[in-house]
């Protein structure tokens, strides 16, 4: 028996040697090493299938727009930028496979990440090979809690947004507030933080949780209205948000409605209906819509992709610009140097304002403002400064 098994081992080893002679086998070059010259590859994980499939293209387009602009000006130190997009389907397993695929494709910086749940398991994957991650959308606190040095969030944190919401609610003198969310990571985080901030100022707060991806929220609406709120704050995304606004209004609710950044989209107004959505407030970072002088950005986006920008288009655009800036400052694409350069960025202009990272690698200031829907568009209501 021993004789046979040793013969088997020999056969196996021989087969292994022969096989790995060609290609990316264990004994050959396993690939994945990003090159130090040639194009700078930026990798993006974004949902293109599954329940969040609608978001992926918005992020990809935003990033592509920045890449084309930078390349048109000659790239970074003569090196062109290249975007590699992989689907994460908002599914942890698919995201990890996608992250590894990006690494195998030799990306230098990651500029993706939308769903917190799917982004979390990709952190150690990128960390192991020292690839800096500039995360444009996902903003759960869990992402930075592990204190991985390569992780940077450029979306305002849930707490910053909750603070903006609480400030505005205070200004509105609302006495009774219902916060609604869809029990996914970021919206829940925001809702919980808003609730505790409001409760400490003596506002009566109730929380109502809905199941995402459904059509009928009348049961949730009925529960929310039982609290007789002056203001209802929806922290989830635009699909459900539009339906909820519509169903709130049709149930006879006349108080104020406010939504979080994930719901700020032209589609929200379309789904809710122009009449129903009129006067809806939103907590949001500066957008091209509200930033003086950004009309050029809007029209460039529309010309290029034939549609309006959507959720996280501008954060993805900024993520790419920031990546280019960090590579320039680091004098190359070496992971450790780019990470160091990112940590030192001071005052880089972004939609959310001049960028500086906190020691936790989140934005030092979220730059949240209050928008309001007027004539079917989100416009600036209060800069909160």
């Amino acid at each position, binding site marked *: 028996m021993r004789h046979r098994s040793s013969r088997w081992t020999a056969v196996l080893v021989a087969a292994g040697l022969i096989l790995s002679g060609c290609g990316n086998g264990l004994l050959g070059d396993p690939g994945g090493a990003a090159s130090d010259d040639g194009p700078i590859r930026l990798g993006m994980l974004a949902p*293109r*299938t*599954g*329940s969040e*499939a*609608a978001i*992926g*293209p918005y992020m990809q387009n935003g990033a592509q727009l920045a890449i084309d602009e930078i390349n048109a000006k000659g790239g970074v130190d003569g090196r062109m930028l290249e975007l590699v997009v992989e689907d994460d389907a908002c599914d942890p397993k698919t995201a990890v496979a996608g992250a590894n695929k990006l690494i195998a494709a030799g990306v230098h910086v990651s500029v993706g990440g939308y769903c917190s749940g799917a982004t979390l398991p990709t952190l150690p994957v990128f960390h192991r090979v020292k690839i800096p991650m500039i995360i444009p959308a996902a903003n759960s606190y869990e992402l930075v809690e592990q204190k991985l040095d390569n992780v940077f969030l450029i979306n305002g944190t849930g707490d910053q947004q909750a603070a903006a919401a609480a400030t505005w609610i205070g200004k509105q003198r609302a006495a009774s507030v219902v916060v609604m969310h869809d*029990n996914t990571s970021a919206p829940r985080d925001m809702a919980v933080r808003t609730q505790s901030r409001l409760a400490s100022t003596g506002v009566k707060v109730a929380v*109502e*949780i*809905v*199941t995402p*991806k*459904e*059509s*009928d929220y*009348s*049961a*949730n609406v*009925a*529960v929310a209205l039982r609290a007789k709120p002056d203001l209802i704050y929806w922290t989830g995304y635009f*699909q459900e948000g*539009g*339906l909820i606004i*519509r169903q709130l209004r*049709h*149930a*006879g609710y006349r108080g104020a409605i406010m939504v979080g950044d994930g719901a700020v989209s032209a*589609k929200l107004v*379309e*789904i809710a*209906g122009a009449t129903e959505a009129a006067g809806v407030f939103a907590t949001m970072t500066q957008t091209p819509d509200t930033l003086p002088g950004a009309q050029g950005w809007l029209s460039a986006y529309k010309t290029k992709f034939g549609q309006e920008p*959507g959720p996280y288009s501008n954060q993805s655009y900024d993520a790419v610009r920031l990546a280019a800036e960090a590579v320039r400052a680091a004098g190359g694409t070496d992971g450790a140097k780019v990470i160091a350069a990112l940590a030192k960025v001071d005052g880089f202009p972004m939609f959310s304002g001049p960028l500086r990272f906190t020691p936790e690698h989140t934005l030092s200031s979220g730059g949240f403002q209050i928008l309001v829907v007027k004539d079917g568009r989100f416009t600036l209501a209060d800069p909160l400064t």
Partner: protein
Amino acid sequence: MLQVLWNGIFVGSFYALVALGYGMVYGVIRLLNFAHGDLYMVGAFVGFISLSALGVRTGGVGIPLLILTLVATMLVTGLLGVALERLAYRPLRGSSRLSLLITAVGASFALEYGVRIVAGADPQVYPVRFDLAALEVLGVRLSGQQLALIGFALALMVALHLLVSRTRRGRAMRAIALDPRASALMGIDVNAVVSQTFFIGSALAGAAGFMAGAYYGKIDFLMGFVIGLKAFTAAVIGGIGNIYGTMAGGILLGLVESVGTSVLGGQWRDVLTFGVLILFLSIRPTGLWGAPVAERA
């Protein structure tokens, strides 16, 4: 509380409409048609595309035009259901039921992502908004469109009832549900009846999809998944394969959900719903009106 019950009944009538097709198909070929919810989704998109093609703008739209679109939608989804049965299910009629289940899953993927290729992943918004005046009865807000939709769903169910109980075709369906082999020996054209069943069931799902699109406004390529799950649940509660049980099961599911949300809060709704379902089935293992399922049919 009455408002909560009304909301439940309204949602439940959608569940019932979709569950009927589920139950009918199950009745004749014992197939859990996973793709059934996706036919609801296709119905919503067919309606959307035809209304857009007709150049309907937001705002006033005639009821006749809506009904015409609805009929066209039912025709298209019905035929799609027939085609699905021909291509994906009929070749496997003699095989194990699980094999059929797998093709149904495959069909579900193909329909969902097929629509995604055509219409994109972004949710679409219906060009018409069905707006009628609301009225209040006993403090319950009933909107005109809710009443119209429930009325229409009821009409479809009554029509189905008449079809199944009063016509030769209906008798053939019931015969096949009882014993397909004996029915074939009695001279019933099993293939034709199965096709008709798929047509009717799919058309009902398509109608529900169109109505949901016109009422809620937002449609997307994965919208059929959740309602398929709910319809399956409703069909089982009622006693799968039994038309009246299925209708009752749909309404009951809507009520349990609505009351559950109201009592326990939205995040525990599904836990409560499925908990009730499991408890209910442990006590009454064949659903409300179901006959014991023959294992070796």
